[in-house]
C-alpha cells in the first residue's frame, strides 16, 4: 500500500529525530510481540507457527530422513514458500538464498548418526502473509521449529563402516534435536538512527535496510544490506553498521531466552 507524501515525510522526520519516535512508540531495540505455537503437525518431526502482532504469519515444518552421507553430504535443505508469490519470484529466491547462506553456518555434527548415515533435515517454510520484510519472522519460526524437533533414538552401533548394517532405532524413545540455527535480524536505517524489527510503515520510509545474523553470542555471516522499499534507498555510514551490530549483540540474548522459554 503506497503512503502519501505527507505521511512519509511525517514518518521520516519522526524516525530521523533525536531521540527518534517510532510510529508505534517502540524503543529502537524493541521488537513487536509475537505468538508462537509449536508441535501441531503430527506427521512432521517438528513444527511451529509464529504470528506477529500485525498479523504477519509463518509456518515451519521440520521433517527428517536417514541418508547415507558418504553419497550425499548435503544434510540440510530449506524450501521457502510465500503465499501469492511464484516459486521463481525475486523475493522467494532472494530469501531462499539468504537462508541457504545462513544454513552454512550451522554445525551439522549433531545430525551424524553413524560413520555412514546421517539425519537429513528438510525445513519447509510457508509465509502466509507478511506486511514487512519477513526474514526475522522466518528465522524465529525456524528456530522454534527446530527447538521443538524430536528425532528417534539410535540403538545400533555408531561404527558401521566395517559391518554393513542399516541404523536401527528405538521404538518410541525420542531425542531432542540439538541444532542451533543463527537468528537473522532486520534493521532499518533512517538518517542517523537505526532500529530493529521495522514495521511496514517504517520500512516504507527507511533509507536502507540491514540484515545481521547472530548465533551463540556472536555476530556471524551473512551480514548485508537490503532495499526495504524502492524509493528511499540511500547510503549510510559504517558507524551506523557498528551501532546496529552492537544493538543485536546486546539484545539477541534476550530474544533467544524468550524463544527458549516457550
Amino acid at each position, binding site marked *: 500500500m503506497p503512503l*502519501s507524501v505527507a505521511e512519509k515525510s511525517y514518518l521520516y522526520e519522526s524516525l530521523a529525530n533525536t531521540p527518534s519516535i517510532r510510529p508505534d512508540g517502540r524503543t529502537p531495540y524493541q*521488537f*513487536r*510481540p509475537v505468538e508462537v505455537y509449536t508441535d501441531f503437525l503430527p506427521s512432521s518431526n517438528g513444527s511451529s507457527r509464529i504470528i506477529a502482532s500485525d498479523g504477519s504469519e509463518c509456518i515451519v515444518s521440520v521433517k527428517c530422513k536417514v541418508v547415507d552421507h558418504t553419497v550425499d553430504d548435503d544434510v540440510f535443505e530449506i524450501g521457502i514458500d510465500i503465499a501469492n508469490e511464484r516459486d521463481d519470484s525475486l523475493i522467494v529466491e532472494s530469501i531462499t538464498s539468504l537462508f541457504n547462506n545462513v544454513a552454512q553456518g550451522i554445525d551439522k555434527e549433531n545430525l551424524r548418526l553413524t560413520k555412514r548415515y546421517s539425519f537429513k533435515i528438510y525445513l519447509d517454510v510457508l509465509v502466509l502473509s507478511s506486511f514487512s520484510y519477513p526474514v526475522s519472522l522466518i528465522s524465529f519460526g525456524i528456530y522454534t521449529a527446530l527447538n521443538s524437533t524430536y528425532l528417534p533414538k539410535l540403538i545400533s552401533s555408531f561404527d558401521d563402516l566395517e559391518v554393513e548394517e542399516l541404523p536401527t532405532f528405538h521404538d518410541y524413545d525420542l531425542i531432542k534435536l540439538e541444532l542451533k540455527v543463527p537468528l537473522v535480524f532486520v534493521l532499518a536505517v533512517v538518517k542517523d538512527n537505526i532500529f530493529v524489527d521495522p514495521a511496514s510503515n517504517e520500512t516504507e520510509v527507511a533509507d536502507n535496510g540491514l540484515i545481521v545474523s547472530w548465533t551463540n553470542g556472536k555476530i556471524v555471516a551473512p551480514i548485508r544490506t537490503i532495499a526495504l522499499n524502492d524509493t528511499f534507498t540511500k547510503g549510510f555510514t559504517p558507524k551506523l553498521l557498528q551501532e546496529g551490530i552492537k544493538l543485536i549483540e546486546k539484545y539477541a540474548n*534476550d530474544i533467544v531466552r524468550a524463544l527458549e522459554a516457550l
Partner: protein
Amino acid sequence: MSEVITIVKGKGSFQQTPLSNDSRYESDDEDVYMSDSEAQQNNEDLAKSQIVTPGELVTDDPIWMRGHGTYFLDNMTYSSVAGTVSRVNRLLSVTPLRGRYSPETGDHIVGRIAEVGNKRWKVDIGGKQHAVLMLGSVNLPGGILRRKSESDELQMRSFLKEGDLLNAEVQSLFQDGSASLHTRSLKYGKLRNGLFCQVPSSLIVRSKNHTHNLPGNVTIVLGVNGYIWLRKTSKMDLARDSPMAGSSGSANGPTGATSLNPTQNVSITRLEEESSWQIYSDENDPDISNSMRQTVTRYANVIKALAYCEIGITQERIISAYEASMAYPNIGSLIERENMEALGADIINAEKMRGNGV
C-alpha cells in the same frame, strides 16, 4: 517480561482472537457419532437468541419485505448470512456479524487514492469496491466560483495522486452499492501533519461529528469506514470547535439586520485563502514538536488497544483511554497484549462505575 520482545505461547487450539478464551463446547476427542438428537437440542437452545445462519428459515409470513441478508423461495424467507435478525417496520433483514464497510449517504470517511482516472479518482475506502471522487466534486484552487477547465483534467495528479489520504463525505450511492464522494466543504480534503491508523469499521459508530479535537493539541478524524487520521490541531480545527460568535446572534441581535456579518466575512476570506493551492500541498507543518509526535503516537496506540479489545471507538473513550494510558510512561509498552487488555478493561469498568456503560 523482557523489554525487548514478548513471545507468548499460543493456546492449544489455533485461535487467537481475544474472544476465544472461554472453554470449547467440544467435550472430548472422540469420533462424532451419527446421532442427530444432540444437535437438535442444541439448535433449540440457541433458537431463543436471534442468531440465524445461512439457509435458515427466518419467516414464512409473506408480509415482510426482504432486506439485505435474506432470500426468498416459495413464499419463505431464508437467511443468507450468519448474523442477527432486524425488523424495522415491514423490512426484515439480517445483519452479518462481520463484513466490509458498506457506505451510506452522508458518511464521513477517510480514504486513500488508489487510481487517477478520466475526470475522476478512485478512492480506497475499505469497502467492497473503490469509491469514486469526481473532479467536479472537489474544491479546486482559486475558490468556489472558479470554473473547471481542460487543464484541470490534465493536472489531476497535482491535486491528488496515488497514495494520498483525504477525508470526504459520501454524496450518493450507485446502483451496485459503491459510493460517490465529495470534498466540497472546508472540513474535507487532503490530510497532512499526522499519522494514519486503521480499525475494523464495525467499531466506529456513526454520529453527527467525526472530527474531534483531543487533549494534547491533537485532532482526530474518525472515518466511519475505520480509517483514522491523527494530526496536529490546526487553526481551522480550533475555529470549527469554538462557539460561532455570529450564529448565536447575540452580537447583532435577533433581527440579524447587519448584512455584513463579521463571521461571514471571515469564513469567506478563509475559504478564499484555503482554496488556494495550499489545500493540495504535500508539505507538513514545519514545526511539529517532538512531544506532539509522541502524543499522536500515544493516541494511535490507545486506539489500537481499544480495537484489540473490540470496544466501540468514540471520542469519550479515546480521551479516557488516553488518560488511563498515562499509567504507562513508555508508549512502546502499549503494544503488549497484556497492557492493551488491561487498558480495555479499565475503560469498560470506568464506564460501568459511572453508570453510563452497557
